[in-house]
């Protein structure tokens, strides 16, 4: 066993980080730049190994999927109520508020049900952290740098038993649509012209199950 066997991760509080005095470090954030650099390298690593734009998006989604499964358990455990989400709307609220707050420090800007098809929902974020400093070049077309986040959402939903296809889309922000002041960008940075729309398309059996529970 390692020399100080006692400070096994299972004995320390979840998310514990050592400080010289051995107490838990209360610093729960790193600079946005640190995250941006690591994420940029993750994207470049997958871009080097992907043959097409859609494969790059699939790879970023799968990178996020594993994280989503962990985040589901971690956020539920920290919720302390020892509850599980069993209904469609409750898991969507769990994602757009609890998961978003835990990962991005604020809840998603909106959660909407698509009008034309019942199995589709949209989670909107005007300032997705993963594309804070990203400029997708023309030749990469519709690639969204937020595919990693859609993978996280898919991991949370599948884990909870609501399997769904989740895709990230960057959509132009209309004039006056987003009145909230920008939060997580350098002061000199202009306001974002695109928002991230995470399209969640649930599988049929999930909808059936939820319908039976309705009755």
């Amino acid at each position, binding site marked *: 066993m390692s020399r100080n066997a006692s400070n096994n991760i299972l004995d320390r509080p979840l998310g514990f980080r050592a400080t010289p005095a051995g107490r838990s470090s209360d610093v729960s954030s790193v*600079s*946005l730049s640190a995250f941006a650099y690591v994420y940029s390298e993750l994207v470049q690593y997958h871009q080097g190994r992907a043959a097409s734009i859609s494969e790059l998006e699939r790879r970023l989604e799968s990178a996020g999927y594993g994280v989503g499964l962990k985040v589901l358990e971690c956020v539920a455990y920290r919720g302390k109520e020892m509850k599980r989400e069993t209904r469609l709307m409750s898991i969507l609220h769990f994602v757009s508020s609890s998961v978003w707050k835990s990962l991005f420090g604020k809840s998603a800007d909106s959660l909407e049900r698509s009008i034309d098809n019942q199995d589709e929902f949209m989670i909107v974020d005007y300032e997705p952290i993963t594309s804070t400093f990203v400029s997708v070049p023309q030749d990469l077309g519709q690639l969204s740098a937020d595919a990693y986040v859609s993978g996280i959402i898919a991991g949370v939903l599948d884990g909870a038993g609501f399997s769904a296809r989740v895709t990230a889309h960057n959509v132009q922000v209309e004039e006056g649509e987003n009145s909230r002041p920008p939060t997580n960008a350098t002061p000199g940075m202009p306001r974002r012209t695109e928002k991230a729309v995470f399209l969640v398309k649930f599988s049929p059996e999930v909808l059936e199950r939820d319908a039976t529970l309705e009755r």
Partner: protein
Amino acid sequence: MATSKCSQAGQQLWAKMPKVGGYTRLCFAWSVIGFLVHTNSSYRITHQANAELFALTYGSLVTELVRDHEDPIEVNKQLDKIGKSIGVRCVDEFLAKADVAGLGLASQCQSLRDTAEVVARMGFRMFLGVGAECGAFSQDQKSFSIYFHDNPLSTFVELPPAGDDQMGDDLRKLKYSNIYCGIIRGALEQVNLKVDVTLVQCTLKGDEVNEIRVELKEVLADGAGDDYKEE
């Protein structure tokens, strides 16, 4: 723009400083840091990201590398190479933002000791929000170590204990935080300091503290590594 006003004041104050040895200027710089930013930490980038999302994202990168390369020694090399790609980029942010805050401290890195102080104290604090110390300077002042306890990268990580199984033995040869070495090497190379950087102690292996050893190889005279090419 509050910051730029301070920087002009900082510049005038700085210019009036009598032309004395670097040491006095270094002390002046420390007081400027204290005054301009937080008392207990040097310049910190205002915009933050969740530390656990950061740790999980890095974890996803490392596990992807382990899946693609299997051999832990190769993964260590990849982490160092990825770190270098970050290092050559983040050094400009460090210089630019320290400059805007009127510090211009980086310019005072005449000796390796100053550089060690700046990298350990300001670099780790600015990007990771954690304190790091430097020490163990060699006789010839050519190498030093950076020590830190709080490692945001390895928040949830536990390497399997020795002798668990073959996969476990491999993982124990993995230097999980090796990316730090590439970052420091890349950053210093951009300012003409060719260094070797190795992770010598890691709390994941049961050590008391994380230690990174930095050894100066050569001071590049002309343009900053202008034969820069992707390794």
